[in-house]
């Protein structure tokens, strides 16, 4: 169970991966990771959920909150790799309409913002 992140090659975008359950055990770490990236001016984020087996309302709130912050700085937060159960949870509260969701994480990676320097 862990949260990891990497800067995408030739890009200003960061990918944050979640391995395990997005519940009380991991939500604080995800929130901290996303907040730190946003605090440091990284507003183009991809969250890879392909190794995420569970999400509760706290996990959803954490993602929406980071998405809002990214958007307010002209960035965005995309999601990729959701399994069928996670997709169902997102759809139940209409979050599938709020987030850009990519089934394939390679596709989401390719949309990363190109480095400006």
């Amino acid at each position, binding site marked *: 169970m862990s949260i990891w992140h990497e800067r995408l090659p030739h890009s200003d975008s960061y990918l944050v991966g979640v391995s395990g359950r997005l*519940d*009380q*055990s991991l939500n604080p770490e995800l929130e901290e990771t996303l907040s730190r990236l946003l605090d440091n001016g990284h507003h183009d984020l991809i969250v890879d959920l392909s190794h995420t087996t*569970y999400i*509760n*309302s*706290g996990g*959803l*709130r954490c993602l*929406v*909150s980071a*998405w*809002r912050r990214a*958007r*307010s700085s002209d960035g965005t937060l995309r999601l990729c790799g959701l399994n069928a*159960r996670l997709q169902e*949870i997102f759809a*139940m*509260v*209409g*979050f599938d*309409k*709020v987030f850009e969701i990519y089934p394939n994480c390679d596709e989401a990676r390719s949309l990363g913002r190109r480095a400006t320097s």
Partner: protein
Amino acid sequence: MAAQRRLTVPGRYPEIRKICEFVAASASEAGFDEDTVFHLELCCDEASTNIIEHAYGGEDVGAIDVTTIIDNATFTVTLQDSGRPFDPTAVPAPPDINNDLAAGLSTDELSQQLQVGGLGLHFIRNLMDEVYFTFDEDHGNTMVMVKYLQGKDV
């Protein structure tokens, strides 16, 4: 013949996982498929989180008592706490995103509304067949969640 199981844990966030596992084991025993067990786990997670956050107002204030009952046609989970009265029916439902988007509300305005909360209860109302809440001075809050056994007409 009804099968009843009971678990009592301290009202702490790490204990929620134990509640989920306990309910998942009982639900599997009741014959639910994996998707339904997953749904029941989510409902118990959300209900337990609400107890710690709202009824107790924090961790280590009181215990959470969980009972599961399997009878001929239903699977019932009862969660009890000794916290302050918490009326989940007073929690507003989250916005209907499909309708609100159609009404021209921006996604930013929507996401602001979604911060208000009530998402957990939305899951519970959507995924359980029946939900009841009661409060009395002796037993505190009692939340009863019922799921009909698969293939049974109730």
